[in-house]
């Protein structure tokens, strides 16, 4: 298992294998192939972009425009069409180019896709995977850098996953597409270039199961998406002071893995959650609230969160870096928890 591919390629491969396996899987989105009806591209069976970041590159040439469908700029339309197609037997995988565009099409998730099965008394099945991307760090400014998986995770009836690495990305995406529910698959756009080992086969990573990425006894750090790397750096630094942090990659934010988190906190007695979302009503608050209820007796100190500030994402590079949670902030926070740790 020595093959190393990028996060982006892993996602591409997940889509490819899911499409290969099940003809009912179709993709829809803006420029996910690109160049629809352009003669010279059609002649060469070429896609123009394969998505704005190139994630779906090559899929149209392989599966054709019937299965890799470029849409007009009509998010409510094609996201809702995906709900309709899913309700009637296909397994659509629409791409919402940036999660920031959710304001154009939230109804299809909030009022339709997530509620249909319930409202219809169990008759409907909406096997739909929404791919989107989130995250600051690409100088994309306030309207293209938000992290809104937490808003989506508050909606009953859908699942939301946030992979942190190529291996999970491929396996989770396949699991999402095989899932009979609406699953939001949120990619951190700044991770696309990240390389790691990824098996060539078709495999699934379980939705709803967190992973312990580093074991430790003194402090639990729960992370979402790329915040994992902040935590791993922090754990390294803390280890030098003899403090062993347990790092948990949450992976699924709805429904998140309460058991793994609570067991860890029971062991360590201390918890920091790192979430790039704005600080209110996000997954970090949800975790904190559950731990503060169910593991209260095991806690040795306050429950800490490190999140983005309560501001939009600024454009200037220096401000954007300041906006993002980083290792220094987490270390400072850890210091509040662990007396004998030097600042």
């Amino acid at each position, binding site marked *: 298992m020595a093959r190393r591919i990028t996060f982006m390629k892993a996602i591409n491969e997940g889509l490819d294998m899911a499409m290969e396996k099940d003809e009912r899987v179709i993709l829809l989105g803006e420029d996910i192939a690109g160049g629809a009806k352009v003669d010279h591209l059609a002649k060469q069976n070429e896609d123009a972009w394969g998505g704005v970041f190139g994630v779906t590159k090559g899929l149209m040439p392989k599966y054709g425009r019937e299965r890799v469908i470029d849409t*007009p700029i009509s998010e*409510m339309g094609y996201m809702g069409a995906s709900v309709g197609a*899913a309700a009637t037997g296909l397994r659509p995988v629409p791409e919402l180019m940036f999660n920031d565009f959710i304001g154009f099409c939230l109804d299809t998730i909030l009022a*339709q896709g997530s509620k249909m099965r319930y*409202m219809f*008394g169990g008759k409907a099945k909406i096997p739909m995977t929404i791919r989107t991307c989130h995250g600051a760090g690409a100088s994309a400014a306030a309207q293209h850098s938000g992290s809104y998986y937490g808003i989506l995770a508050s909606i009953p009836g859908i699942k939301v996953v946030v992979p942190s690495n190529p291996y999970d990305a491929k396996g989770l995406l396949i699991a999402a597409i095989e899932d009979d529910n609406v699953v939001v698959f949120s990619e951190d756009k700044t991770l696309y270039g990240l390389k790691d080992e990824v098996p060539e086969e078709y495999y699934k990573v379980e939705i709803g199961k967190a992973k312990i990425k580093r074991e430790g006894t003194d402090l639990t750090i729960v992370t979402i998406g790329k915040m994992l790397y902040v935590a791993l750096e922090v754990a390294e630094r803390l280890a030098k002071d003899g403090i062993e942090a347990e790092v948990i990659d949450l992976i699924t934010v709805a429904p998140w893995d309460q058991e793994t988190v609570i067991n860890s906190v029971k062991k360590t007695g201390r918890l920091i959650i790192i979430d790039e979302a704005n600080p209110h009503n996000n997954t970090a608050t949800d975790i904190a609230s559950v731990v503060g209820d169910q593991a209260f007796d095991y806690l040795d100190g306050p429950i800490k969160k490190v999140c983005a500030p309560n501001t939009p994402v600024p454009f200037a590079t220096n401000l954007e870096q300041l906006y993002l949670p980083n290792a220094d902030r987490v270390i400072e926070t850890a210091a509040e928890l662990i007396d004998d740790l030097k600042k």
Partner: protein
Amino acid sequence: MEKLSKERAEWIYKKMNDIRNFEDEVHQIFSTGSIPGFVHLYAGEEAIATGVCAHLTDKDYITSTHRGHGHCIAKGCDLDKMMAEIYGKETGLCKGKGGSMHIADIDKGMLGANGMVGGGFPIAIGAALRNKYLKTDDVAVCFFGDGAANEGTFHESINMASIWKLPVVFVNENNSYGETTPQKYASGSKRIADRASAYGIPGETIDGKDLMAVYEAAGKAIDRARKGEGPTLIECITYRNYGHFEGDEQKYKAKEGQEKDLADRDSIPEFREYAVAEKLLSAEKADQIEQTSVEDIEHAIKFAEESPIPKPESLYENVFVD
């Protein structure tokens, strides 16, 4: 498109009566307080749902609106279970969890009433996309109101249906009002069918009180869709007998003039007269259908009333497919 057969005419007459009786009864029952929530009645618009669905099979899909009982009945949903749903009973089409605004039966191709005005457009084109992708000749029909034509979903969905030549028919039920707001105030275009050209698809305005006009226009459009020739927009001029929802005082309705004339028309006797004259229906058969329909609705009410309320644990069920 097939000429109207006797069998179909009987089917149509039964459905029109079922819808009318169903709605008139719900109106009554609502006033007694036995039915909770928001209820939007279809009475007065029977010719549309019936004239359109006469061309559909269980394999064709429809999306409906908040005013969905008529579409449900015309699409073949079980009357007992429908009534039970509106009562919020366990035996309801949706186990009592949907109610009037979310009544649905996917097995019958009925993709749901929809509490969101304009919510049906994208779902309908999604079903049509599925029909086309699977190379079936099934169609999808999207029923929508005049008010819904001003939602962005109208625009996005019809445009996509056009560029992808989807087998879908957009059936507008122009009953002059979106709640209290006149269509003539809310729409920049005089006719809703005028908007079809903005998407390069055919559009026409027809008399939605005339069953045969609907039957023929819908037949043509559905045929076109089945043949892969793309979507059509049909605007049906109609009127609702009751208020926007139960409880509406209807102060805004005009008590005279053109509007009153439209209000006074009744497509059920109009169709009966036509069908009897054309020998598609005998007077006896028509009487008998009327009678059966009354009984069927009575049965539905009894069924609903005698049904149990949902079990508490069902609150937590059907959120996810396990």
